[in-house]
Every structure is written in structure tokens, then in C-alpha cells.
């Protein structure tokens, strides 16, 4: 597995003031595979993804992508690295000052200097792939429902055919049917591109659907990882408690301690 590992995190640590958020993360993602990181709120899932993107700088540890160390990259090298990424944000994070098609085409027009007309054609094609017709293209994000915003966000994430895609809670806040639609789109898009993906979620239905491998994060550490189908037989009490959603178990919510 290590030979074709695409993204490797070694002992990544990050603290905000006295609060240690990442406590030595070790994670390896094989090329073209989908790893889903599960874990409760506030366990460091989002911070982990942001350290890979370089939005947050880790205090120590190493992150390599295709064998190249990426922590501490600056300027042009960092821009070049970011061109290889796509990301779907939890709240879709669409630019509300721009119409839908410009949102999708944004990375092409601004980041890669694609002519607007070509970028528009690509945007229409990507919108079609996520099941949105041309009538949506001229609308503004505020005019769309939550599920449609997520789909536009997905179209934007895949617009530049990235080799690595991050999904931050792709199904949070959607009804179960729309959640499944998004899951299917995620699986389709990833297959079509052959991209390596890391998703973070606490929705187990979503995790089972989109994951090749599942890793569980707790208190800033990966405490278990394995193939997606073995998540039910992990024998790990933390994982069991999480996937069955029990209040009792080794994971104590802060509210219970108080």
C-alpha cells in the first residue's frame, strides 16, 4: 500500500493556543482511492484537511503528496499544488456575488486563465454531470436550495479535473434522499476522474457508500483504520460506539463530564 500512497500524513500536530487539535495524525491514502475519516464534532477532522491544503500550517510533522513534501510551500509552488486539488465545503461556500456558472468556472478563469467562453462550456458540462440543467447556470447561489448548492459546489470541485478531492461533510444538512443523490454523484465523479479523495463525515450511511477505506479520528489521532467493509467487525470499542451512535461507551461527550 505504501508504494502507491498518494497522500501521506506523518505525525502531524497542531495546537491553537493550549488546545491541541491534532495530536500526531498518521494517515496514508492510496492513489485513486477514497478514504473516509469519521469522528465526532470537534475531533480535528476539518483542521486535518486544512493542513493538507495549507490553509492551516501544522506545528510539526510531515505531509507528502506524490512523495513531495508540501508543508511550508509558499508562493508559486503552493499555487501549483493547489491547482491539483478540488474541495467541496460543508456549507458549499459558493461565492454569492457570482452566478452559478461563474462559481463552477471560477478556478478555471481566475486560477488557470482559461478564456471565459471555454470555461463556461466546461462549467455547463460539469453542471450536467451533477444533474443540473442550463437553466440553473444564470441563477445566483442564494436562489438555490441546499441540495442544489451542494451539487453546484461539487461541480465546482471537479471543474478543473483535480487529481485530489476533499469532501467536507458532503451530506450534512440534507434530507436522506438528497444525501443519497449526493453520495452517488460523489462516487460517480470520483470514478470518472480517477481522483484520490479524502472525505470527512459523521454520516455512516454516506461513509459506507463512498469509502474504500475508513479511518476513525478521536481527540486528534487516528485510532482505527481499515477497509470499509470491515468497519462493522473492527473490534474497536470507539468505532463500535460511533457507528451505532450510542451515548454510552469509551467516547465521553463533554456534556456528560460537566
Amino acid at each position, binding site marked *: 500500500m505504501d508504494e502507491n500512497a498518494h497522500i501521506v500524513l506523518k505525525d502531524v500536530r497542531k495546537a491553537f493556543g493550549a488546545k491541541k487539535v491534532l495530536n500526531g495524525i498518521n494517515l496514508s491514502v492510496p492513489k485513486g482511492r477514497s478514504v473516509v475519516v469519521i469522528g465526532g464534532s470537534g475531533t480535528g477532522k476539518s483542521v486535518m484537511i*486544512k493542513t493538507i*491544503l*495549507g*490553509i492551516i500550517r501544522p506545528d510539526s510533522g510531515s505531509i507528502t503528496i506524490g512523495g513531495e513534501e508540501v508543508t511550508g510551500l509558499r508562493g508559486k509552488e503552493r*499555487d501549483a499544488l*493547489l*491547482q491539483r*486539488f*478540488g*474541495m467541496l*465545503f*460543508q*456549507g458549499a*461556500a*459558493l*461565492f*454569492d456575488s457570482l452566478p452559478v456558472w461563474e462559481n463552477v468556472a*471560477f*478556478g478555471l478563469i*481566475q*486560477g*488557470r486563465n482559461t478564456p471565459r467562453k471555454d470555461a463556461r462550456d466546461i462549467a455547463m458540462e460539469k453542471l450536467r454531470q451533477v444533474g443540473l440543467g442550463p437553466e440553473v447556470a444564470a441563477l445566483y447561489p442564494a436562489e438555490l436550495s441546499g441540495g442544489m448548492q451542494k451539487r453546484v459546489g461539487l461541480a*465546482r470541485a471537479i471543474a478543473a479535473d483535480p487529481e485530489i478531492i*476533499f469532501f467536507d461533510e458532503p451530506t450534512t444538512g440534507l434530507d436522506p434522499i438528497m444525501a443519497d443523490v449526493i453520495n452517488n454523484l460523489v462516487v460517480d465523479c470520483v470514478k470518472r476522474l480517477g481522483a484520490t479523495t479524502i472525505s470527512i463525515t459523521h454520516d455512516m450511511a454516506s461513509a459506507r457508500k463512498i469509502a474504500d477505506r475508513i479511518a476513525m479520528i478521536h481527540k486528534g489521532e487516528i485510532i482505527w483504520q481499515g477497509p470499509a467493509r470491515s468497519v462493522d467487525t473492527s473490534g474497536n470499542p470507539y468505532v463500535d460506539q460511533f457507528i451505532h451512535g450510542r451515548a454510552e461507551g469509551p467516547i465521553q461527550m463533554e456534556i456528560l463530564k460537566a
Partner: protein
Amino acid sequence: MNFLANLGRVVLALLTEIGSIVIFIKDALLQGLTPTIYVRQILEQMLRVGYNSLPVVGLTAFFTGGALALQIYLGGSRFNAESLVSTIVALGITRELGPVLAGLMVAGRVGASIAAELGTMRVTEQIDALTTLATNPFKYLVGPRIIAGVITLPILVGIADTIGIMGGYIVGTRSLGFNSFAYIKSTADFLQLGDVTSGLIKAAVFGFIICLMGCYHGFHSKGGAQGVGRATTNAVVSSAILILAANFVLTSLLFSE
């Protein structure tokens, strides 16, 4: 001991804030004002900062010029110096009131809206999204706003100067009984180019302060709607205070020349 601890906390918080503003200025200058330049964004912001502020700034200047003429007439009449009205109105508007009042009005209008806009973009992760789309937020958001502020504020102040002097002229000729030709002639005779340019230099600095503070507080807002509200207030208050402080410093510098 408690008092000392509190004092220390306040001092540390202040120093942290200053440090983070200095880092922000460094990033804004080194990343925001170097190529790639987003021309479209700059034009859009110039429209927003400059053109849309015209009514507010124009009205402020007009009424200030008029009130100034009345006050100087009243003050001047106590030692038979009513004839100075036109000169003092022109000097007061171009050197001081034009740039400062325009700066304060724009701080309230534009500084607040920049902070609210960028603050909302921050808390809804739109700024992070920019980064993931290989677009540097400093170049795309901060740079164009600062450039727009530095370019449009002097233009706004130039217009405010004209309207302010006109306000003084209207009051002077309509209600104070000045001769129209004499009023214009004495304004033109005594007003020097340096009076106007010193005001325009101030305006450019104020434009920088307003947009910088708007961007800084927007970028650093956190915690949803309340955080954005706080960022907006801080942007307006800090740019107003910095404008008044910078005005004093600039006046002393330009005065000694």
C-alpha cells in the same frame, strides 16, 4: 496582583492585535499589490468605493461649506474681518475638512460594507474556497479594494472640495451679501496648489486606511453573525480613529514644509 494580571492581559492583547495588523499589512502589500492584478475586481471596487459614495460625500461637503461660511462670518465680524470668509472656507475645506469628512463618511459607508462582506465570506468558508480554487485571497479580495481606495478617495475629495467651496459661495452670496465676482476672485487669488494637493495626499492615505481596516477585520472575523457584526463595528471605529490620528501626523508633516 489581580490588577497586574489584568493589566498584563490587556497589554498582551493589544500587542497581539498590533502584530497581526502588521502581518496583515505585509501580506496585503507583498501578495495583494503584486501581479497577478485583477483589473475587473479593481474597477468593480472603484465603482463601489468611489462612485457610490458620491452622494454622501457631496452632501456632507455642501452643508459643511455653507456652515463654515456662516461661522467664519460670525467670528470674523467681531474684528471686522468678514472679508476673509471666502479664503478661509477654501483653505479649511481643501486642507482639512474635505479629506477628513469625506474619509469619515467613506469609512462608515465602505469600511463597514467591506468588513461585513469579507467577514461573511470568512465565516461561510468562501475565503478558504478561493484558496482551494488556486486564487490567492489577498490578490483577489484585498489588493483590489486597497487599490480602489487609494485611487478613488483623492478623486472623491477633489469633488468634495469643489462642492464644499460652492456651498460656501452660495451662502456667502445669497445670505451674507458678498459680491459673486469678488467672492470667486478672492478664492482663486489666495488658494494655492499646495492647499489642494496636501488634501489629496491625505485622502489617498485615508483611502488606504479605510480599505485596509475593512479587509483586516473582515478577514479575522469569526463566530457567525455576531462575529461579523463585531468586525464591522471594529472596522469603522478603528479606521475613524486612524484617520483622525493620521490627519494630525500628516498635517504636521505637510505644515512644516
